[in-house]
């Protein structure tokens, strides 16, 4: 239990560190406002020319709230890959390893602390904007419970993806390119702006099986249109993706740590 508490404290300290700058918090709110305003106008126009009141099974109100949830997820992603890359390139990994901590769990704690703060800020801004543009959404307790069950797993999966990209710094000079591919794949294949139902029918089965959809689309859908069937499907996909990611990360980290070498005089 004490071991888990350590990482909880790391998350807490990271969270505090990320609200230390009021200016940064304000910038994030402005960014979210601009993004939501632009995409809301786009969806309002699309729904305006569309004959029916629903697209991909969602009303315009649900679609705008879907945007709030998915954008908050995408924008709140901590740059764990950059942190790991810096650990490797500057030798900062040495400072991490002198403490009685697991390297991976330390980064998980930091990522979760940062993510929760940022996600909360973006959601707060998003809720205000969505209420102003589209009005309230009808939530149910079970719907919110399903959303809150799916969300931490989505955060965890995204962390593992970032961490894996960062670990590649043990072999590559720079992981910028890989990080760019990963983040864009999350946005484009995960259903950031378009829900899965709007992708070509032939691609949908594959996309739904990829981890990206269970990070972005699944929490977004649970937020606006929760259903038990979708929840369990998303939950099992997340669980499977989690097992695969954990195996890969474990193997890569073990190989990477054999490559730690001295840096500096």
């Amino acid at each position, binding site marked *: 239990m004490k071991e888990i508490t350590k990482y909880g404290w790391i998350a807490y300290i990271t969270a505090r*560190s990320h609200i230390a700058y009021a200016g940064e918090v304000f910038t994030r709110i402005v960014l979210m406002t601009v993004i939501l305003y632009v995409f809301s106008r786009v969806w309002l126009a699309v729904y305006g020319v569309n004959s029916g009141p629903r697209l991909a099974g969602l009303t315009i109100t649900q679609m705008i709230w879907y945007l709030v949830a998915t954008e908050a997820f995408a924008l709140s992603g901590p740059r764990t890959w950059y942190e790991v890359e810096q650990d490797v390139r500057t030798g900062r990994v040495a400072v991490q390893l002198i403490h009685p901590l697991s390297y991976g769990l330390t980064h998980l704690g930091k990522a979760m602390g940062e993510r929760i703060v940022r996600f909360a800020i973006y959601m707060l801004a998003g809720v205000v904007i969505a209420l102003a543009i589209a009005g309230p959404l009808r939530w149910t307790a079970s719907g919110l419970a399903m959303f809150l069950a799916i969300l931490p797993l989505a955060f965890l999966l995204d962390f593992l993806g970032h961490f894996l990209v960062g670990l590649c710094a043990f072999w590559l000079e720079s992981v910028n390119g890989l990080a760019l591919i990963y983040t864009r794949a999350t946005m484009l294949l995960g259903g950031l702006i378009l829900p899965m139902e709007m992708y070509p029918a032939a691609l949908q089965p594959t996309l739904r099986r990829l981890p990206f959809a269970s990070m972005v689309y699944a929490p977004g859908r649970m937020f606006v249109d929760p259903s038990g069937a979708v929840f369990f499907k998303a939950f099992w996909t997340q669980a499977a993706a989690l097992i695969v990611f954990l195996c890969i990360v474990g193997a890569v980290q073990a190989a990477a740590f054999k490559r730690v070498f*001295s840096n500096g005089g």
Partner: protein
Amino acid sequence: MTRGVEIKELRKNFVLKRWQGCRRIASEAVAVDGISLKVPEGQSVAFIGPNGAGKSTTIKILTGILHPTSGDVYVAGYIPWRDRRKLAYQIGTVFGQRSQLWYHLPPIDTFDLLSRIYSLKRVDFVRTRDSLIERFALGGFLHIPVRKLSLGQRMRAEVAASLLHRPRILFLDEPTIGLDVIARQELRDLICEWNREEGATVLLTSHDAGDIEQVAERVIVIHHGRIVVDDDVAAVRRRYLGSKILRVQFHETPREIPFRGMKLIERSLHEMKIEIDTSVISAQLAIARVLDAGRVADLSIEDPPLEQVIGRIYSQAAAAGAP
């Protein structure tokens, strides 16, 4: 088994791979080449050597960060790379060029976090923290974000952070780098005090002769991965520089002194600074000659600065044809 540090035939080779045309060629670089030593508990040891000598690699093996290629190492009774997390409770580490303090938060928050990381009992932690705050004079900036602290304040907080769990062994890797003269002196005094009062073992690496002279009682010089000198600081100075510095102040302008074995370094109207080569002339004879030269108002004899000693050791090691 010693509670200090014990190293037997430690070796660390790095494999370097490079492309030659379409083929990848692997070559080995030897960073540590058969080091053996024992550091008893409570001793303060300076580990010095030129850049690339292998001292940082050795420290990183001792702290469990790196695995050696071969050899046995025991630190506080643990094998570092096998028991890294257990060992972490016994050691404190300060890397002068890397910080463990949270940049945007005040030092007190990092202290609090470290108390959780090391699973310290609240009452013990508060007692140690308060004692360190007093000893290191941290009270004035404890609640100011680290980014707003001077380097001297930051390093004091940094060392205090590494002592919160009362480590038995303290590794200091260039702790005074970048500090001004006063901050450097303060930090050295604090480390000495901790070593003296807590009986903790101190292993220090530094390029600053003052750190070595004032903090360490024993010096180990490493060159090309091998130990070239292992002795106490005073003995190293005596052995590696057969010279003394003589400062003399006369009541009047002195007569000329026959300078065989005595090199005049500085001279003013009534003062002289002379370097004595004790292999040519004994200190006793040199002083007698100086006393003959005029009425002496004041006289002092000093050892040469450690920088000079270190410089000589390095050049001797290079001349000895170390690979």
